[in-house]
């Protein structure tokens, strides 16, 4: 097994995870599993992976009847289940494609199978359409080999297999951009398991469970990811020599380092290309290198470099230990070590950094083994993969530079007058109060913010929609801009308002917006515009939410209480001077 592939659970490990968690939590997360086969171990694996990623909930997975995929898709109702998993195999569309059918064979039968799967695909499309209006869906299209019905040699494309491809694509095309349907990518499955390795004939015959255990475990892990929405990593710290390029810059000079095919350094070029795409889509990239800065500057001035200097912030180039560089970069970015990946070709450097930052993901660049590059690049995609790119992704790096240069410097420099700085910013807030259920940026912000976060509560897609549509729901999203540029949407507050009291369940703000008093302005706007007497916060301390605790202390609220109550008069007395202009967008 490659060092770049995740180890998957054995069945015993999966059952032990389920057993361990069983008695602990009263919060339930019910999922419905619709298939035509006996889901058996696939349920156990999915449940275990989900349980491991959501330890505070009890995962319950229910399934329907054997051999009735269409009926099973219709079963789950919105109020009973939070997610629907649909797993289709070809025998669900025509049993003659399976291995349990004793239907005999004739030439005309092949044509009949083609007609049948075409008709049944239309029914399937309809069933998925209906189900997805009620509940978020994960869809897995056929993964298993079929009985070799065609008389042609199996390496030649035949009409049946061609039709199967067309129908699969038809389903994919309809649901690929559907907001409530996620489709498991068959290409990803192909990269990991051949069809022979997916299928277990004996288990299919004995129990009606067609998958090999390793493949079932792999599928279960993917299903869990589509439900739990793991937070993508936010930053990558890269080494330079032997990683971003081949060669030791200090020895060979900027002309002697390479990342191209001609110098057998293509894998470094591919890595640069992937870094470029990560940077363009909002991932922070920093460099940590034991080098002399003038040499690195010359290297980054080479016009053929794929990953350019303007995408890197900050550079840590000196001869101190790498852990020193990583610590400084984390402080500059103001994000936790568990949100960051460190890439270096030296096992020694990786170990030194890991010893200081145990929660950091440390990856060895496959310098000596170019054969591993695809697995390595795919692993980076797994760690940083986003479902959607938001406007904020495109400005994140720039806004962190400004934060570092203007705000962090001003805070640490006592000669800088904070009030003059804030009053000169020409800061402007855009306030959004509608359409939160469809606001992917707000959803992302609530689910990935750690520091200024009221209680660390994360939401599944269905829970998010449920909250946004609940009676009395009040939510606001704030976007910020000033003379240094926009930060995009950086604050979300969700609550329920009743008779002058706002009950706040979620309150998060991006660390990029710290020091600008946006959080104070948010509460002031709510008090004034909603005529509130008080705001109640459902607070819970987490390992990382120190910044919001500091904020509450400014209002003499005690972070040891689980319900913090801020009265209008108290707020007015203690709120600092605010300089923002405000525009309400809806």
């Amino acid at each position, binding site marked *: 097994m490659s060092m770049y592939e995740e180890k998957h659970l*054995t*069945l*015993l490990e999966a*059952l032990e995870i389920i*057993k361990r968690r069983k008695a602990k939590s009263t919060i339930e997360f019910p999922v419905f599993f619709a298939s035509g086969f006996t889901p058996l171990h696939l349920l156990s694996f999915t449940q275990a992976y989900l349980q491991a990623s959501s330890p505070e909930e009890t995962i319950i997975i229910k399934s329907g009847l054997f051999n009735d995929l269409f009926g099973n898709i219709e079963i789950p109702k919105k109020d009973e289940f939070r997610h629907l998993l649909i797993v289709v195999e070809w025998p669900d569309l025509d049993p003659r494609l399976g291995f349990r059918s004793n239907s005999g064979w004739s030439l005309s039968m092949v044509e009949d199978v083609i007609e049948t799967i075409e008709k049944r695909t239309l029914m399937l499309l309809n069933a998925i359409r209906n189900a997805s209006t009620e509940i978020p869906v994960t869809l897995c299209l056929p993964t298993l080999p079929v009985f070799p019905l065609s008389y042609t040699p199996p390496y030649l494309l035949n009409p049946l297999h061609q039709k199967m491809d067309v129908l699969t694509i038809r389903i994919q095309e309809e649901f690929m951009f559907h907001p409530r349907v996620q489709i498991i990518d068959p290409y990803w499955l192909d990269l990991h398991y051949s069809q022979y390795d997916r299928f277990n004939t004996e*288990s299919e*015959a*004995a129990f009606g469970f067609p998958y090999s*255990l390793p493949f079932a475990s792999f599928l279960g892990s993917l299903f869990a990811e589509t439900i739990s929405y793991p937070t993508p990593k936010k930053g990558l710290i890269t080494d330079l020599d032997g990683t971003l390029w081949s060669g030791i810059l200090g020895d060979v000079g900027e002309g002697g380092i390479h990342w191209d095919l001609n110098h057998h350094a293509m894998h470094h070029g591919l890595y640069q290309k992937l870094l470029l795409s990560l940077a363009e889509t909002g991932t922070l990239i920093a460099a940590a290198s034991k080098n002399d800065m003038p040499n690195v500057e010359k290297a980054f001035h080479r016009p053929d470099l794929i990953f350019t200097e303007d995408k890197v912030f900050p550079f840590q180039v000196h001869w101190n230990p790498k852990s020193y560089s990583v610590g400084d970069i984390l402080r500059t970015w103001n994000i936790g070590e568990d949100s960051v990946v460190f890439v270096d070709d030296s096992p020694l450097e990786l170990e030194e950094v890991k010893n200081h930052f145990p929660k950091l993901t440390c990856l060895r660049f496959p310098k000596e083994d170019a054969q591993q590059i695809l697995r390595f690049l795919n692993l980076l995609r797994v760690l940083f993969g986003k479902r959607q790119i938001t406007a904020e992704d495109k400005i994140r790096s720039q806004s962190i530079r400004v934060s570092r240069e203007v705000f962090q410097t001003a805070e640490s420099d006592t000669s800088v007058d904070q009030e003059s700085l804030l009053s000169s910013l020409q800061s402007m807030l855009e306030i959004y109060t509608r359409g939160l259920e469809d606001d992917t940026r707000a959803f992302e912000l609530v689910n990935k913010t750690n520091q200024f976060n009221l209680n660390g509560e994360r939401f599944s897609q269905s829970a998010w929609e449920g909250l946004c549509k609940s009676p009395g729901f009040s939510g606001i999203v704030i976007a910020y801009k000033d003379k240094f540029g926009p930060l995009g949407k950086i604050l979300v507050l969700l609550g329920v308002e009743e008779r002058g009291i706002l009950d706040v369940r979620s309150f998060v703000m991006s660390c990029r917006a710290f020091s600008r008093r946006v959080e104070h302005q948010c509460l002031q706007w709510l008090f004034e515009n909603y005529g509130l007497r008080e705001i109640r916060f459902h607070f819970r301390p987490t390992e990382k939410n120190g910044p919001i605790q500091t904020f509450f202390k400014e209002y003499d609220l005690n972070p040891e209480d689980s319900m913090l109550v801020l009265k209008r008069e108290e707020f007015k007395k203690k709120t600092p001077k605010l300089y923002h202009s405000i525009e309400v967008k809806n």
Partner: protein
Amino acid sequence: MASESKEKLERCFLAVFPEMDLKEIEQASTDKTLDWDSMASVMLYSLISQEFGIKILPEKMVDLNSYSTIYTFLAEEGKIK
């Protein structure tokens, strides 16, 4: 080695019958153990196959109806020495 394999077999049983203790597991059989239904059998055979790297043929499954017969079967196959 022998105790490790025995422990692994016990873990398999504990995963399928989480309410039982080790003493009860050694006495477990399809006759005496209420929870040991066909689903539990499937779970148990799959676990043992994966953990011990062994194939259990369908005709053999009928005979593997207690902890002790499974233990003996694994010993005969050289999986528990």
